[in-house]
């Protein structure tokens, strides 16, 4: 039989446009568009991409319920045997959309769904338990490997073939444990692991502890009228000309700028260099990303103490989690030394 494949992609891979078209509404096209051609080829005559559902990443992120509903209707109408979404690599909003539509289609239509993402994509933590996510590289340079990885998993699912462990099949583990009889008892295996650990040789746990990257909330500000508040952004707002050459994406640095004399962000003094959203509005008035103008008003009205003189900024798109955490630690140290009481961090 020929499997009916539906493919979900964003505005970029559909060739509609980049960030300026990120609000593109859900659209259905017949057959394959963009990377779907290769998926069909990899099915080697056993499957056909019957339709491609396209949605802008911004639209999906901002109107998730409407977008999901519209895309699901389109997918349903195509009577698919399987849905592929992406690959999204390390694009956060695209990963979120791919994971969300794959999870929804799997649940509503009862069909197998497969996406592809870089392990650090936020879509992974949100959706890896609800859809198969093939592990890809962090950018579209890895397309040639990502599509076979996704397709192989999809074909296995369609044919009902036995799915091996995540680390062997190349997908992100779904938190599912299968029971089987082992020739050695648990006690023996545990002692073997312990001995291996003591020797410093490699061993693999049979039960991975989840990584909780959550912390208890800091205590609240007691007296707002005396509080010094720092402004921080990952929205790529920098002094005009980007003097410290902060990267437009995958940032490896952040900037610290004195705003003590600044009342208002204007196109003359500040700009956005962020490579992950449409900068049209931010470049007309950077206050729509970093709200300095109204902060100054509220400061003068005495609603809070004062704005911390230093403003910290970077671009949060494709930025490695390890880097973002390092920026956070370094900025945190400085705020602590300066006796800052609270911070407002804006992200795009």
């Amino acid at each position, binding site marked *: 039989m020929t499997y009916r494949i539906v493919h979900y992609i964003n505005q970029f891979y559909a060739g509609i446009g980049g960030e300026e078209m990120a609000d593109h509404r859900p659209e259905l096209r017949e057959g394959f568009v963009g990377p779907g051609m290769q998926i069909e080829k990899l099915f080697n005559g056993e499957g056909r991409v019957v339709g491609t559902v396209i949605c802008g990443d*911004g639209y999906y*992120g*901002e109107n998730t319920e409407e977008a999901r509903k519209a895309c699901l209707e389109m997918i349903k109408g195509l009577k698919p045997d399987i849905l592929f979404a992406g690959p999204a690599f390390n694009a956060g909003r695209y990963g*979120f959309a791919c994971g969300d539509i794959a999870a929804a289609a799997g649940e509503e239509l009862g069909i197998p769904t497969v996406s592809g993402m870089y392990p650090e994509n*936020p879509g992974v*933590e*949100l959706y890896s338990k609800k859809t198969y996510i093939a592990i890809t590289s962090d950018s579209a340079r890895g397309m040639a490997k990502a599509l076979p990885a996704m397709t192989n998993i999809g074909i296995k699912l369609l044919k009902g073939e036995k799915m091996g462990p995540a680390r062997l099949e190349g997908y992100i583990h779904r938190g599912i444990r299968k029971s089987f009889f082992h020739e050695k008892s648990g006690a023996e295996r545990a002692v073997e692991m312990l001995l291996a650990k003591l020797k410093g040789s490699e061993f693999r746990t049979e039960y991975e502890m989840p990584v909780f*990257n*959550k*912390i*208890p*909330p*800091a*205590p*609240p*500000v*007691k007296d*707002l009228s005396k*509080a010094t508040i720092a402004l*921080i952004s*990952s929205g790529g707002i920098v002094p005009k000309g980007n003097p410290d050459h902060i990267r437009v994406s995958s940032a490896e640095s952040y900037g610290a700028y004195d705003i003590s004399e600044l009342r208002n962000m204007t196109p003359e003094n500040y700009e956005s260099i962020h490579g992950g*959203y*449409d*900068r*049209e*509005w*931010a470049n007309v*008035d950077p*206050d*729509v*990303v*970093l*709200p300095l*103008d*109204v*902060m100054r008003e*509220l400061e003068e009205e005495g*609603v809070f103490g004062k704005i911390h003189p230093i403003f910290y900024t*970077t671009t*949060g798109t494709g930025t490695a989690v390890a880097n*973002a*955490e*390092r*920026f*956070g*630690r370094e*900025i*945190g*140290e400085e*705020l*602590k030394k300066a006796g*800052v*009481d*609270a*911070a*407002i*961090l*804006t*992200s*795009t």
Partner: protein
Amino acid sequence: MTREIERVAGIPVVQIATIVPIMLTVGTNRIVPGVAIPHPTGNPALGPEGDRAVRRELLLRSFKAMTTDITEQTIFEK
């Protein structure tokens, strides 16, 4: 970034951004949902005055967030 600043400095960090599930995933404790991805703290479609009013309301809500005692991740809705 938000979580690490809060952890190291020991101060409340309010994050204003649009995709709430991502803030929940990365461990933001005090969440104020923003207006839109390209303009989280304003709404240019409302004209200069409306835009500032939106910003003012979001900031007042952020102040409420930073002065509220919480025990878990909390979304501060309008």
